[in-house]
């Protein structure tokens, strides 16, 4: 027993403390509880992993039986294997940095304690998700992080757009979760257990001929769940809107951890996917398409956080692409490096926004290199990392994915390369627009650098972004997944690096060397630009195709027809009948005790007489 | 002699002795109170007023029996009879001594030995509320009603700690038969200390003895708990409207209850008729010694008379005492009467306490009275019961 349960228990305790007492407690208490609980959790993760050593076999701790129904036993089991170890480190490590950052970023917000309470609750559920030893517990974490995401997106719930964004995230996720829960039902129905090891063992052993259809169905349903949580096409629409939440939330939940849960889950279920090649192919194509699709949208966004949000979607697509071509460890590897540089991008964006007093529009920024040097340099680190410039972290993980993709199908590889170029372009576009040129914002506002409590986490993340490629994640994960990666092909590497550098150069050309050129190009492209600028009108299409019919259908059919006339009619009718019957029967209630007694006597005599007539005495 | 004849004979003897005792207890009380208050007490009728009880009885019997017009006749007459009947009924189960043999007949000095004798006594005492309560109600007068109400509330309230105190003594004796309760208290620790329940191991019942005695004061409506008949508030409480023999009946009931209470205390806590110390230390000579001493005192006062006629009367008294002393020196008589002597001595001592308390303590206020029993006496009795139960359970072999 290594007391794995302590890892999620610390943030839960923090949530309870802050949630129950935070309102009246001083800020220092809230900080100490909120950050301290995550720090303790992180330290405990380190301690546990040090104790566990190389983790040749998974370490499972079974605490109690949670659900027992017939043969089905679902326990509260936490597992520490190589995969969850990586995830635990990322979640608690990056989470800790973001918590520290939040102290500065949220300093002037009301509901400060609420923010930290939610954040801690999120940490609890996320850790539960990555440490779960069975599907149901994973699902609990899955739903829990969804709940926290909803709460934190709508943190400023007085703002209608924030509240709407929260709702949208929640509802879109329901669609994915529906698929996920169906997958869980199928697993229970066919395997009689939800524990990972028995299920995967059964998957490996059972003959493919009979189970192929089932496994494909399960894998596809899992993919539905993953697309919801990890914002893949077609369920990605909630993530850009989720940027209404506070920036640390965007960094923690909507970049580094929660949205990668889908990737984690896919990697976790690798045994199932490996037995369902069609589904795996679908994963790859969904990932590739999402990566490209979101990257194109990111080109034309003006909101700095939206740019990074589409970038996140695109990078998540990369991860799915990696998983889909069978390079699960590459996908997780990219997950880790992405957690570093995307968290850094968001936190840096937050720092910029903080510096500008809430301004998010790239067109009203510029020239911040001087006023916010730390932010600039750290953001630059993140940008080179994401652009795949060697030897930084993004280069390693992206290359691993692209190599695997090329091995699988050159088409996927080329999509990846183009996406890499686009990625480099839009990230540097944002960077150049914000930090180069002249300040185009409110002339009365004087931008300033963020306090150390914000910049120190930035620097830590910057270091991680730069060095993240040398952590040996793929080697560590190798025993978990079948090796399918070919040896390095230098030509392919060179192509992707050139693509990235080309993107950077184009961005330099457009936004630093020749400012104004971008607008002219956009004008020339005309309709295409409008299409991209308006995000391919996906939200509008969904609105017309799904939302409106549902709303109007429920109003006209379900409410006015079914509910009012049938259900209400039945209930009211019953009530009315009971009332009229009661009008008759209440005459018996004379209020006279002795008449009641007489009735009782009458009944008793009836019973006695009945006994006398029909026997039953003996 | 068959059972019925024997019972009748015993009942007649008991009734005679009891009635005399009741009458003379009254005399003793008046004398003692008088001396406490530095008065002479009754002294006109007979030497030292010794014939006063007789005179009182004649007076009460011949007085006009007045029944006020506003009363409920049936209950008004029933109440005193109920009171006195119930009071006398309790003597049916009280054992005064061990089995003795008189004129060739072996019989216990007791009317009947019920195996639930104590429960019987409790039942009688709980029902005896009615005498007072009904008298108060039937009199149809404010003072009487208030007296009746007070007494019923008081008697119900004090019955609880009394029963609990009895129960803790029962835990040591392990029987409900009064005779067996006395039998279990036979013997001495270390040859000296009597195995009475107030000294009894493993848990001496001193506390419950005190509680019982206090409750007995309240149950008999005696000072300091005589609120039902508090003269200066309620005129005379429940018997304001009573006169002549019915009035006397209440008094008889009160004194009978006093004797029952003291006898019960003797039986349950003071070892009944067992001597204070063992025979080998000379306990068998104590009765004779006591009577001899009493005769000596009487003779001394006769020789140095305070009043002229004492010169004639006291020597006669002395001679009577000495004769009794000689009587107790005869082994046969001693064997039969010594237990009775011890029983009478203990009961008499307790009765003296009753009178003594009446002469010295003031009356409680009613709320104090109620608070005292519910908030002090009952918890104490309860704690004592639990402690006794615990100790008895832990050390079942010690006795």
């Amino acid at each position, binding site marked *: 027993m290594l007391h794995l349960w302590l890892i999620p228990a610390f943030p839960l305790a923090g949530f309870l403390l802050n949630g129950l007492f935070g309102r009246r407690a001083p800020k220092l208490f809230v900080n100490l509880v909120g950050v301290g609980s995550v720090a303790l959790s992180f330290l405990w993760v380190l301690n546990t992993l040090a104790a566990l050593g190389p983790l040749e076999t998974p370490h499972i701790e079974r605490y109690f039986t949670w659900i027992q129904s017939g043969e089905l036993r679902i326990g509260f089991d936490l597992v520490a294997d190589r995969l969850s170890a990586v995830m635990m480190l990322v979640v608690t490590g990056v989470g800790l940095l973001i918590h520290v950052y939040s102290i500065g970023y949220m300093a002037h917000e009301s509901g400060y304690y609420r923010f930290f309470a939610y954040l801690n609750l999120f940490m609890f559920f996320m850790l539960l998700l990555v440490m779960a030893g069975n599907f149901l517990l994973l699902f609990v974490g899955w739903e829990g992080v969804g709940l926290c995401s909803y709460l934190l997106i709508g943190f400023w719930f007085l703002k209608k757009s924030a509240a709407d964004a929260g709702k949208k995230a929640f509802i879109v996720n329901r669609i994915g979760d529906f698929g996920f829960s169906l997958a869980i039902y199928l697993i229970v129905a066919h395997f009689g257990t939800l524990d990972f090891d028995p299920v995967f063992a059964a998957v490996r052993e059972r003959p493919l001929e009979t189970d192929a259809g089932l496994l494909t169905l399960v894998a596809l349903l899992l993919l539905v769940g993953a697309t919801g949580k990890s914002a893949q096409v077609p369920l990605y629409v909630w993530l850009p809107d989720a940027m209404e939440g506070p920036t640390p939330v965007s960094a923690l939940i909507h970049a580094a951890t929660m949205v990668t849960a889908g990737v984690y889950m896919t990697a976790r279920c690798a045994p199932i996917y490996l037995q369902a090649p069609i589904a795996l192919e679908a994963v790859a194509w969904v990932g590739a398409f999402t990566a490209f699709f979101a990257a194109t949208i990111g080109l034309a966004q003006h909101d700095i956080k939206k740019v990074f949000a589409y970038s996140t979607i695109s990078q998540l697509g990369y991860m799915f692409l990696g998983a889909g071509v069978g390079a699960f460890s590459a996908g997780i590897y990219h997950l880790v490096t992405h957690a570093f540089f995307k968290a850094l991008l968001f936190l840096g964006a937050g720092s910029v926004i903080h510096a500008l007093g809430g301004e998010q529009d790239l067109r009203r920024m510029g020239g911040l290199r001087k006023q916010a040097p730390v932010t600039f340099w750290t953001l630059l680190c993140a940008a080179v990392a994401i652009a795949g410039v060697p030897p930084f972290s993004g280069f390693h993980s992206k290359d691993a994915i692209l190599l695997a993709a090329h091995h699988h199908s050159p088409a996927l590889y080329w999509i990846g390369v183009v996406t890499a170029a686009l990625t480099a372009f839009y990230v540097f576009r944002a960077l150049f627009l914000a930090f180069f040129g002249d300040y185009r914002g409110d002339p009365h506002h004087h931008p300033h650098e963020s306090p150390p409590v914000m910049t120190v986490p930035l620097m830590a993340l910057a270091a991680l972004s730069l060095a993240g490629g040398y952590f040996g994640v793929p080697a560590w994960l190798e025993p978990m997944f079948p090796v399918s990666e070919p040896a390095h092909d230098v030509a392919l590497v060179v192509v992707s690096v050139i693509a990235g550098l080309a993107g950077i150069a184009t961005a330099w050309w457009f936004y630093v060397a020749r400012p104004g050129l971008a607008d002219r190009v956009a004008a020339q492209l005309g309709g295409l630009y409008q299409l991209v600028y308006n995000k391919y009108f996906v939200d509008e299409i969904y609105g017309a195709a799904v939302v409106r019919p549902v709303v109007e259908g429920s109003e006209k059919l379900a409410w006015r027809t079914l509910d009012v006339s049938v259900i209400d009619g039945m209930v009211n009718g019953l009530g009315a009948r009971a009332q009229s019957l009661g009008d008759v029967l*209440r005459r018996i*209630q*004379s*209020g*006279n*005790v*002795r008449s009641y*007694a007489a009735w009782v*006597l009458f009944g008793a005599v009836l019973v006695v007489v009945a006994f006398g007539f029909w026997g039953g005495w003996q | 002699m068959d059972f019925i004849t024997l019972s009748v004979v015993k009942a007649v003897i008991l009734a005679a002795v009891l009635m005399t005792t009741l009458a003379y207890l009254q005399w003793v009380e008046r004398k003692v109170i008088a001396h406490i208050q530095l008065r002479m007490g009754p002294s006109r009728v007979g030497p030292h007023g010794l014939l006063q009880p007789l005179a009182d009885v004649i007076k009460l019997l011949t007085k006009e029996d007045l029944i006020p017009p506003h009363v409920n006749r049936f209950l008004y007459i029933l109440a005193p009879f109920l009171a006195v009947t119930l009071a006398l009924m309790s003597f049916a189960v009280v054992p005064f001594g061990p089995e003795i043999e008189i004129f060739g007949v072996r019989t216990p000095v007791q009317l009947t030995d019920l195996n639930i004798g104590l429960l019987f006594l409790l039942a009688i005492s709980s029902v005896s509320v009615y005498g007072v309560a009904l008298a108060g109600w039937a009199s149809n007068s404010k003072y009487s009603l208030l007296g009746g109400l007070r007494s019923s509330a008081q008697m119900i309230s004090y019955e609880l700690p009394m029963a609990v105190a009895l129960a803790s003594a029962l835990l040591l004796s392990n029987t409900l038969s009064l005779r067996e309760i006395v039998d279990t208290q036979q013997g001495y620790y270390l040859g000296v200390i009597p195995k009475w329940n107030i000294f009894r191991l493993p848990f001496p019942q001193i506390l419950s003895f005190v509680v019982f005695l206090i409750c007995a004061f309240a149950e008999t409506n005696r000072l300091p708990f005589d609120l039902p008949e508090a003269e200066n508030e309620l005129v005379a409480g429940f018997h304001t409207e009573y006169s002549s023999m019915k009035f006397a009946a209440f008094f008889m009931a009160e004194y009978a209850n006093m004797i029952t209470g003291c006898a019960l205390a003797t039986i349950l806590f003071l070892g009944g008729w067992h001597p204070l110390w063992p025979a080998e230390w000379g306990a068998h000579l104590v009765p004779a010694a006591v009577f001899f001493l009493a005769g000596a005192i009487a003779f001394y006062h006769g020789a140095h008379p305070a009043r002229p006629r004492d010169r004639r009367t006291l020597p006669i008294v002395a001679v009577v005492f000495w004769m009794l002393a000689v009587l107790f020196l005869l082994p046969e008589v001693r064997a039969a009467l010594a237990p009775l002597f011890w029983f009478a001595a203990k009961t008499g001592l307790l009765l003296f306490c009753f009178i003594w308390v009446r002469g010295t303590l003031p009356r409680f206020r009613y709320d104090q009275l109620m608070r005292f029993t519910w908030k002090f006496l009952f918890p104490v009795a309860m704690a004592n019961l639990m402690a006794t139960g615990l100790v008895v359970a832990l050390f079942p072999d010690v006795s």
Partner: protein
Amino acid sequence: MNAVPLSWYLILSAVLFSLGVAGFLVRRNIITVFMSIELMLNAVNLSFVTFSYQFKQADGHIFTFFVMVVAAAEAAVGLAIILALVRTRRTLEVDEVNLLKF
């Protein structure tokens, strides 16, 4: 005739119970009505003790004991209710306590 059959005790119990019911129905003073209930309980107790004799088991006595306990509790609460009733409605007539009706 030296002894009576067991059934006579039961008949006595039934008679007492019926008289209790009659008292409940006939009397209007709420205290007397209450006492009629006690009479019924007593009648039932007699049955218990009788059957205890029949089966030579003390269980019937235990039940009688419990009935007494319940009767005591009932008397305490019931009389308190009567006191409260008299305080608020100034009557002991059970027929005048008839607010709880349609």
